[in-house]
């Protein structure tokens, strides 16, 4: 019986491969220089999408990703990693990681496993993926068993577990260290540092409130963006916070680096801080954003993209500003725009 199932699965896999390869030839290729807009989709809506935006033509394609005839990747697309020629889409609701070809935005494979439970983010070193995983809920919806799952990307299967404290969020590899923020709606404000040579937790340090995204500057230094209004530079070797920039007030937990500056969104203001001098410059006021949800700077030209989640279940809004604050375009995108990826 089991064998038959396996056979069935194998047949299905081959069949779908044929099917999807067939479709690929016909699907429109994203324009060169187009911006991918990652949408979380509605909670339990199973309607996460990837749209593409062409800044030159100011045109938006809502269905840039298609799997068969459906533009929906799965439920709650928490984050997407671009690595080499693929996108790794982490689905918090579907409990899987979908691998998508970058060039044609075609479906390649799914990583599914019993162990994957409310995953958050993925990073890759060589052929190993490191997936932060919330794990099951305890009483009162607390977390009880979060971890990092290692994924063998040659077979797309879960190969191991690194036990951590709860609430693991963003992951980033710097050298041979895996940096993991821990947050879970403010229950934790920590950074865990793991040595990926032996997959052992080396340190877990406390940070200012709201640690979320980890970004790496041109010099290779990791910074933790804390939504409480702090940027913290980490020395991953020593496992310490070496510099903290106080931004005086809460910010969106997503910031971006352009040249030697970190750009961030504070209330309805776009600001930047110079990494060398620590000087904060207020760039411009944005339009009134209901639910700031995504923020990024185009590395090609310094243009600023902001995603507005509106009411979390509706078509989100995307605003595109020039580097000096001129509103270049705005349009309705998918449900909860959460991330921008620039080619």
């Amino acid at each position, binding site marked *: 019986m089991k064998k038959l199932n396996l056979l069935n699965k194998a047949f299905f896999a081959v069949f779908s491969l044929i099917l999807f390869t067939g479709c690929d030839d016909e699907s429109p290729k994203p324009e060169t220089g187009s911006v991918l807009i990652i949408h979380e989709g*509605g909670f*339990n*809506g*199973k*309607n996460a*999408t990837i749209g593409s935006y062409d800044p030159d033509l100011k045109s938006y394609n*809502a*269905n840039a990703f298609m799997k068969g005839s459906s*533009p*929906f990747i*799965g*439920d709650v697309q928490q984050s997407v990693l671009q690595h080499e020629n693929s996108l790794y889409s982490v689905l918090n*609701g*579907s*409990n899987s990681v979908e691998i998508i070809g970058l060039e044609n935005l075609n479906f390649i494979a799914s990583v*599914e496993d*019993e162990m*994957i*439970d409310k995953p958050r983010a993925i990073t890759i070193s060589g052929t190993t993926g490191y997936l932060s995983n919330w794990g*099951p*809920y*305890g*009483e*009162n*919806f*607390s977390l*009880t068993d979060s971890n990092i799952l290692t994924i063998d990307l040659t077979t797309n299967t879960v190969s191991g577990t690194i036990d951590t404290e709860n609430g693991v969020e963003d992951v980033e590899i710097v050298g041979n260290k895996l940096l993991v923020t821990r947050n879970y709606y403010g229950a934790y404000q920590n950074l865990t540092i793991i040595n990926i040579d032996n997959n052992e937790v080396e340190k877990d340090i406390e940070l200012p409130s709201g640690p979320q995204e980890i970004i790496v500057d041109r010099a290779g230094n990791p910074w933790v963006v804390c939504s409480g209004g702090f940027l913290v530079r980490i020395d991953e070797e020593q496992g310490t916070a070496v510099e903290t920039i106080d931004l005086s007030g809460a910010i969106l937990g997503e910031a971006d680096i352009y040249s030697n500056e970190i750009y961030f969104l504070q*209330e309805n203001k776009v600001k930047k801080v110079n990494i060398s001098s620590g000087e904060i410059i207020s760039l411009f006021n944005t339009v009134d954003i*209901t*639910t700031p949800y995504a923020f990024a700077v185009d590395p090609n030209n310094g243009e600023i993209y902001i995603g507005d*989640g*509106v*009411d*979390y*279940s*509706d*078509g989100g*809004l995307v605003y595109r500003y020039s580097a000096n604050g001129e509103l270049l375009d705005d349009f*309705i995108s*998918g*449900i909860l725009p959460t991330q921008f990826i620039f080619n």
Partner: protein
Amino acid sequence: MRLGIVLLFWVFALNIYAQTPVDSAITLQEVMVLGNFEKQFLPGNDIIIPKATTLQFYHSDNISEVLRQQSSIHIKEYGNGMLSTIAFRGTNASQTTVLWNNFNINSFTLGQMDFSLLPTQAVDEITIIPGSGSSAGGSGAFGGSVLLQNQVDFNAAPSITISQQVGSFGQYSTSLNAEGSIRKLGFDTRLYWGKSDNDFEILSTGEHQNNAYFERKGINQSLGYQINKNSSLKAALWYNDNFREIQPPIGIKRNTNNQEDKNFRSTLNYQYSGNRSKLSLGTGFFQDEMVYRLDQATSYFKVNRIESFADYNYHLSDHHQIKFSARHNAIKAENESYNGGGAEEQRYSLGLQLKGRLFRNELEYALHIRQQMVQDVNIPVSPYIGLSVPLIEQNNYKLRLKANTSYNYRLPTLNDRFWNNAGNPELNAETGWNKEVGISSEHYLQNVKLNISVTAFHNLVDNWIQWTPDAQGTFRPRNIKEVLARGVEASINFNTPIAEVLHFKTNLQYSYSKSTVEQSERNANEIGTQLIYTPLHKANGDFTLQWRSFSLQAFQQWTGKVYTTNTNSEIYALDAFFLTDAALAWEKRSWRFSGRVNNVFNTDYRVYAGYAMPGINYQLSIQYQLNFNK
């Protein structure tokens, strides 16, 4: 176990009484409808009473099946047998009231009714009143009201009906209904139990649905006692226990969440009828409990209510009557998510209704006014004017014009008012101004009967409450929208004999509901767009062919495209779908056998984005009725 004892008691009692001759004088008493909603006080409205054969067809389903087949109501279902909410005439799930024996049974925490918790077999009669208004239906009667009744008939001889059903995906349903009267005691007992493994094949993937099992059991018991010629007493009790796993969206396999709902409802009514007056006093105790579990986490809430009313009806003359009513509802909720772990609310209301006939009794009119009071909540006075005028009245042809207008309100729910760090106790009530006009005709040609009715409505809802994120990202309820719902409802009823023993009946309905956001403080992009999960077009029809002891019934519905985002994005829209259910039944003496096929054409459809619904499936049922002498 306890249900078994009650059942035994009834069988035992009936056997004894079945032998006793009964005084024929008692049989002159009318059917007692206690806690009456006074449907006759709404002359300007269409009143839809689904036929007994329709209730029989959907006996083992939820009443949502009956509602969507018999009216313009659209039901949003989060999977098969899962949470089911109503959209009536382009209004939202909280804007239709559901009353049982004249008591509102909508959830007081969420404001809406989960129709998957209302099995058809638990109730005796369903009445749908589109656009009934708050002066009659109370808080939230914007789209209309759904009335559920369990009546006691002092005339009927006792009978017991036992039904057993089996169906696809491990579906079983058993019910027992004992009704009738013994001396001065009238009763209606309904016991039911049902379950479904619900592991149907998901048509789009070929996989079987996981985590969608459900089970329910319950009792609905009414007892009436004729005290004397003028007065009677009725007690009713309804307990429904529903357990379900929560069907996840297609392809999601790890979910292990489930929910259990326990609803206990009990009412006591006293009625006195004098020469020109009628007094009705009633009180009820209600308890709604819900437990939701996900992994180790649980959420729990309980709402206890005691609601009481007094109605006094007086005939001013042969053609005019007046009714005074007063109501009090004491609500106490336990919910860890509320400020202080709970909430209390006292609701009062006073109403006056006048109805009668004018101009040689040809014009029927009704005037109502009602005022509800809740501390800190701004609630408007709720008036209603309804008229019904015969335009043509001949032996074989009648044409009637109906019109009504009402100003309605919906109170903020307990969640809206008391949710921890989000609720606002001083929210205003939503308000709605409904206007409608309809024309209905009846044609008779020997044994052929044809009824046609067309109604147009216009309903402007203001102060619409919606939870939206504030500047800190916290969701809070606010009065932020104005929505205009307008449309047309049309129905055709046709009834004809084809041959001496062959009879054909049909009922066709079409509705157009355009419901658009007129003003929004939050999201300018939703202005002018159709409300989500509200089909612009909907049509349904049922057909019955009766030949001797056989009957063939088919129920069909076509639901137009619905949008699932406020901005009406096409990519998130759900496609229109057409469904057919059909059944063949044979009925003779005490036996009834039937076989039913649901979703005959194996249509893959979505009622809620991402959730699978079953393809073709089957049901067999057998029913036996035991009759006793009166």
